[in-house]
């Protein structure tokens, strides 16, 4: 069963296309990250999935066929990007209220609210007013509010923004627990490190369009296969002997200085279809002593910058002079 099926949704605000023909599928029981730079259309996409705004085109199905909105509401927990609480409400009442809003009975809502406060370490604050809590604590109350009805599908928009490292860990643990309980977690973020640590599936969106999606492991393997090699030479003489090999366009597409601290001299992209093995053979053939030769598995951050950068360039080339998109 699919937790979320998004088919060709588009949304336009005035003359700005926020989301342009986006489709993706979230399998049940996974942690799925929607990644993208600021203003890429992440929040708009999540809002359409939650029926807060209606797509101009396309449609959304949740949990194997439920329509977003009233029908799906008891099964879905959503933490919006812009979020607040009622400042004068007591913490326990606030969470229980959100539970009742999602269809729980009053008694059930209170019981679960107590459990969540316990889990998040906020028990001693239960009778305090929300306004007495720090920002981080309020954020935890918001998480509890989004999950109190034990929804099958949890959607979190930028959940880590504004959290300190300790609370970020707490949230990561909570997300993993939810997955372990068989629930699906769909979240958006622009923090690649967070996504890399817990996502199984990712969807990268930029300028309202899909750039890439799939299993994180597959994506990384594919990116590694695209051939990026880190290289360290035995001596400066070796580096000189290697120069003609590296300049051969049949082997090497590009080379650049390695990132500082990487203990490599060069980082290079292999020409299309060339296996790293051939480069190594050519280097050995040229009597180059190699201290380090490593096929680099790129970080999500690198993949993101690569793909989003390239995609943006492609869009710019296709639509010369169409600057309307950035204005809004």
């Amino acid at each position: 069963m699919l937790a979320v099926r998004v088919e060709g949704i588009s949304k336009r605000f005035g003359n700005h296309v926020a989301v342009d023909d986006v489709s993706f599928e979230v399998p049940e029981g996974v942690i799925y990250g929607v990644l993208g730079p600021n203003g890429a259309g992440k929040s708009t996409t999540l809002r359409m999935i939650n029926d807060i705004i209606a797509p101009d085109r396309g449609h959304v199905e949740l949990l194997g066929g439920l329509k977003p909105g009233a029908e799906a509401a008891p099964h879905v927990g959503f933490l919006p990007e812009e979020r607040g609480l009622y400042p004068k409400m007591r913490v326990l009442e606030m969470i229980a209220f959100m539970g009742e809003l999602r269809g729980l009975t009053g008694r059930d809502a209170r019981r679960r609210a107590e459990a969540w406060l316990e889990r998040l370490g906020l028990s001693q604050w239960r009778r305090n007013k929300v306004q007495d809590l720090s920002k981080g604590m309020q954020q935890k109350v918001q998480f509890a509010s989004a999950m109190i009805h034990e929804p099958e599908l949890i959607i979190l928009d930028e959940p880590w923004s504004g959290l300190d490292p300790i609370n970020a860990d707490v949230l990561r643990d909570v997300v993993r627990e939810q997955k372990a309980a068989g629930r699906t977690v769909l979240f958006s973020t622009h923090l690649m490190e967070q996504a890399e640590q817990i996502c199984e599936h990712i969807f990268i969106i930029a300028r309202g369009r899909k750039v890439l999606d799939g299993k994180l492991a597959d994506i990384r393997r594919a990116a590694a296969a695209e051939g990026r090699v880190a290289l360290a030479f035995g001596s400066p003489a070796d580096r000189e002997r290697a120069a003609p090999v590296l300049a051969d366009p049949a082997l090497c597409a590009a080379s650049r200085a390695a990132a500082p601290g990487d203990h490599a001299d060069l980082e290079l992209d292999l020409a299309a279809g060339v296996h790293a093995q051939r480069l190594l053979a050519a280097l050995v053939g040229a009597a180059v002593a190699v201290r380090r030769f490593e096929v680099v598995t790129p970080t999500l951050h690198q993949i993101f910058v690569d793909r989003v950068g390239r995609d943006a360039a492609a869009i710019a080339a296709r639509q010369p002079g169409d600057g309307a998109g950035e204005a809004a």
Partner: protein
Amino acid sequence: MIRPRQRAGLPDWLVIARRELLERLRTPWFIIVTLLGPVLMTALIVVPVVLGRVGDQTARVQIVDHSGTLGEPLRLALTAEKWRAELVPPDTDEKELRRRIADDRIDGFLVVPAEAPAAGSFVYKGDNASAEHIMRSLNRVIYGVVLSTRGAALDLPEDKVKALLAPVDFTTRHTTGEDEGSSGLATFLVGYVVMFVLYLSIVLYAANVLRSVVQEKTNRVVEIMVAASKPRALMLGKILGVGGVGLIQVTVWAVMGVVTINQRGALLGMFGVDAGGWSVPPMHAIDVVVILTYFLLGYFFYAAIFAAIGAMVSSEQEAQQAQTPVMMILIIPMLCVQLVANDPRGGVAEFLTQLPFSSAILMPMRWSLGGASTVSLVVSIAILAGSTYVMARLAARIYRVGILMYGKRPSLRELARWLRY
């Protein structure tokens, strides 16, 4: 597809309404205003009257007598009323007299015309000329002195003049034919109080809806609420919850009012006032029903408008501006109170109590004055209920789009587009 879960608890609009209701009921302000509201309102009416009584009852005046005959009798009559009156020479310069007022040596001066008592005009100038009860007693004194002087000129003995001047008792009774009638003033006062309470509670609570919508928008809690529920339920719940608070308050006030009216003899007796001449119009159960019906309809009508305005704006300052036109419309019925009170059965009253913008405030008053027929009441309620329904539908559309919009206020064209969504 998973099996859709049934809601185990209350419907979402009810959960929201309960939260809005409890949040307001629990504030100390609600208790204070509910219990002390009538006291404060009564105080607002009574205190100025009482202060007027305990204030200066008399004055220091100088009499400029051009008639040569009335000066002394006036001085004596005023002195009998405990005024400090003295005669000054008729050729005293007016500038000099005004300087005495400016120096606070006297409160004012009375100029007796040469033609008096047959003709001419008495003129009083003083810093207390605006104090109504002082001017009334001055007028009474002058009237008495002039009449007895005229009587003496006609050779009427003093006791006959006294008999002529004996006060005439004049009573007014308000009735539209169904009963013997009740005190005209008391009837007007009851109608006026009913109108005022309705106006005040509709304005207070409908505007409270606006403020609460704007606050939810500015602190972004609306995002979480819309994620968990629907804008329609959010608006309905809020209007019902706030309205519930208002209904409780108005009911408490109405009960207090009925008790006060029924026990007025005892209550007035406590202040040493005889309630004998005060026959207040009887309050029937139907009157209370009419008042509560119009409160609810009027409240819903205006709350819907205010909720839509709240959804359109992004800050309290903007809200202040945007609500001004509605506040102006709400003031119109207040300004038309006299039109209805003077002629409750007239065409103007009929028009104003059928118009949905003013009927909620003016109809209960007109009804309590006995000016409205049952048909006219039913038609008015039907028009108001219908308008409220239409207004709520329109407001819900604006609200749905508006609450998630921040920044610029929509233009009329954008608003029209929101309505079509």
